[in-house]
């Protein structure tokens, strides 16, 4: 699979079904009590639905009421300036009632070929500057000029502001380059650990915690999110029967691009490339696409089994890594009815263990910044200036003018 696969291979009904299943899965996740639903952004290949994660997030936010929606994530460099992304973030955050989580990936190598216009050899520097401009746009209460190396924006004045202040939570999906982990630590982002061999994952987690210490604080487990396939069934054997073919399909087909597509020139530094080659990135031991189910389980590429086993494995894995969040990778080939089965069993038999008594998701425990009803809005409303207009030579209050001389002291916010 590559970014040059022609769309003569695309089947419209399957495409539509994939969107439909994404909606179904998200609504089910909400009803079952998952904390969030996450979508990705990919370009130029069948790997992802959304070429724009913010659009996907807006759609899902419109379909749901309470669950957090994570758009992981927009490629900042693809926007002509990150202020455009800030506008999208503010819009979706407001429209969703403050439920947005935003991811800021650098972008895997193939995206640079697929997008074409962002230079991989200057992408990291552009990303760093975009990150600072994005944060300032979201946070600033007055207009400012940005005069950088990569962006020159004379008037940055973001209206509206995001509902969550100072900003929605930001995840950075990363394979673990030191530079990215340092950035996560500095800005207090969530390091979203994409799946790499277990030993590397452990090293990365420790590197991240050390980077936080160097920034002067101890990281919270909620700052480390592990991405991993999870499956639960009545017994270990049943879980294997249900999952094995789908899992193998996934590891043998998804995100398997040829080297030259994955490493456009300048995408990695020479030191990183040298390190990768020394670490035997080509070796079979690090390639899940050539492993069988037992190897995948034993090497920690997934968690699967009975509820008891999954509870234990999750606790062990999360504990070992210091991860406070788990992002479950769903199986693209699994039929809807099987997906509903494992998700329901997971919600009833696994999730409560990892929650405070009562089993509520975060969005049902924490007080959201959004008001829920108009009466709450009225109670909270500050005394803002009332809109007036010049009418018949008088400056009139537009909201009460229709009452004419009957107006005495009608309370309006």
């Amino acid at each position, binding site marked *: 699979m590559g970014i040059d696969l022609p769309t003569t291979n695309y089947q419209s009904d399957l495409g539509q079904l994939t969107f439909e299943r994404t909606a179904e899965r998200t609504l089910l996740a909400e009803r079952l009590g998952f904390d969030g639903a996450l979508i990705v952004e990919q370009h130029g290949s069948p790997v992802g639905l959304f070429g724009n994660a913010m659009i996907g997030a807006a759609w899902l936010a419109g379909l749901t009421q309470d669950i957090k929606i994570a758009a992981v994530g927009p490629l900042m460099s693809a926007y002509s300036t990150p202020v455009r992304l800030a506008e999208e973030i503010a819009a979706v955050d407001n429209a969703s009632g403050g439920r947005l989580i935003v991811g800021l990936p650098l972008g895997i190598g193939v995206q640079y070929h697929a997008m074409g216009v962002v*230079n991989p050899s200057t992408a990291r520097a552009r990303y760093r500057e975009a990150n600072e401009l994005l944060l300032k746009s979201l946070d600033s209460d007055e207009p400012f000029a940005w005069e950088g190396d990569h962006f020159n924006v004379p008037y940055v004045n973001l209206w509206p502001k995001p509902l969550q202040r100072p900003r929605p939570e930001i995840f950075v999906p990363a394979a673990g380059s030191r530079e990215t982990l340092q950035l996560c630590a500095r800005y207090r982002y969530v390091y979203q650990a994409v799946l790499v061999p277990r030993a590397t994952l452990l090293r990365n987690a420790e590197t991240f915690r050390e980077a936080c210490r160097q920034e002067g604080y101890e990281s919270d487990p909620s700052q480390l999110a592990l991405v991993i396939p999870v499956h639960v069934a009545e017994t270990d054997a049943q879980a294997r029967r249900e999952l094995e073919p789908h899992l193998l399909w996934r590891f043998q087909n998804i995100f398997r691009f040829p*080297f*030259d597509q994955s490493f456009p*020139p300048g995408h990695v530094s020479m030191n990183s490339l040298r390190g990768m080659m020394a670490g035997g990135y080509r070796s079979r031991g690090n390639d899940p696409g050539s492993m069988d189910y037992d190897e995948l389980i034993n090497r920690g590429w997934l968690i699967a089994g009975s509820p008891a086993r999954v509870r234990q494995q999750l606790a062990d894995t999360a504990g070992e890594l210091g991860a406070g969040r788990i992002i479950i990778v769903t199986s693209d080939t699994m039929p809807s009815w099987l997906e509903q089965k494992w998700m329901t069993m997971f919600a009833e038999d696994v999730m409560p263990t990892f929650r405070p008594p009562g089993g509520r998701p975060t969005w049902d425990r924490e007080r959201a910044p959004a008001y829920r009803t108009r009466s709450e809005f009225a109670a909270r409303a500050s005394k803002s200036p009332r809109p007036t207009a010049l009418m018949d030579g008088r400056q009139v209050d537009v909201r009460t003018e229709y009452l004419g001389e009957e107006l005495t002291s009608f309370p309006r916010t």
Partner: protein
Amino acid sequence: MTRRWLPFYDELAASRRVVVPEHPGFGDTPLPDRIDDFTDLVLHYADFANALGLEAFDLAGYGFGAWLAAEFAAFYPERLSSLVLIAPFGVRTPDTPAPEMFLRSARRSAADEFNGTAEHYGSYLVDGGEDETMLQDYAELSAMARVAWNPRYDRKLDHRLARVRCPSLILRPDEDRVVPAAQADRYAEILPNSRLQVLSSSSGPLGHAMIAQDPAGVAHAIGSFLDMPREGDSHL
């Protein structure tokens, strides 16, 4: 093909003084952060020529180097006695997409550049071990990407090369599997005082790696051109 004195350079040097700089980011030449477009590279080479005390000279370039030589010529036409472009790319060709330089596996690259005869050119392809070669190739491709990732042509050469009035020679191989013939053709169209020569070799088709496949033949074509009597109008 960097970090070594090629047989091709020897052929040229038999009868004239030859200087072969390696571009920033190629060979052992460092790539400063401040170099991120062609004007930076052009100024780099103006400084280089000044450092060598060269006011006017014949300029030749090969492949990416030919694009760079054309850019230099557009900005400093008065410094050139002649311009030679070997298997060039970098102009926008109306009916043919720009050659793909960045999305090619190493194996496919060698096959395409040498027209299937790459196994005879091991010394050109592997330098210091397979891993070290791969790292060096990646570094050099990254240096080219810095200035040529997007767009993959310079549409301004369409009008700027009209300034280059010195005699120009464009050489292309008869069977280039990397760069479409339309590129050399277009350069010949827009350079006002130019000739186009298509080279073949007695031992088979000549491909993009022409300076490796037939160093004597390519050097001879260049030598004949440089030895031709010049008309007076080689300055702006």
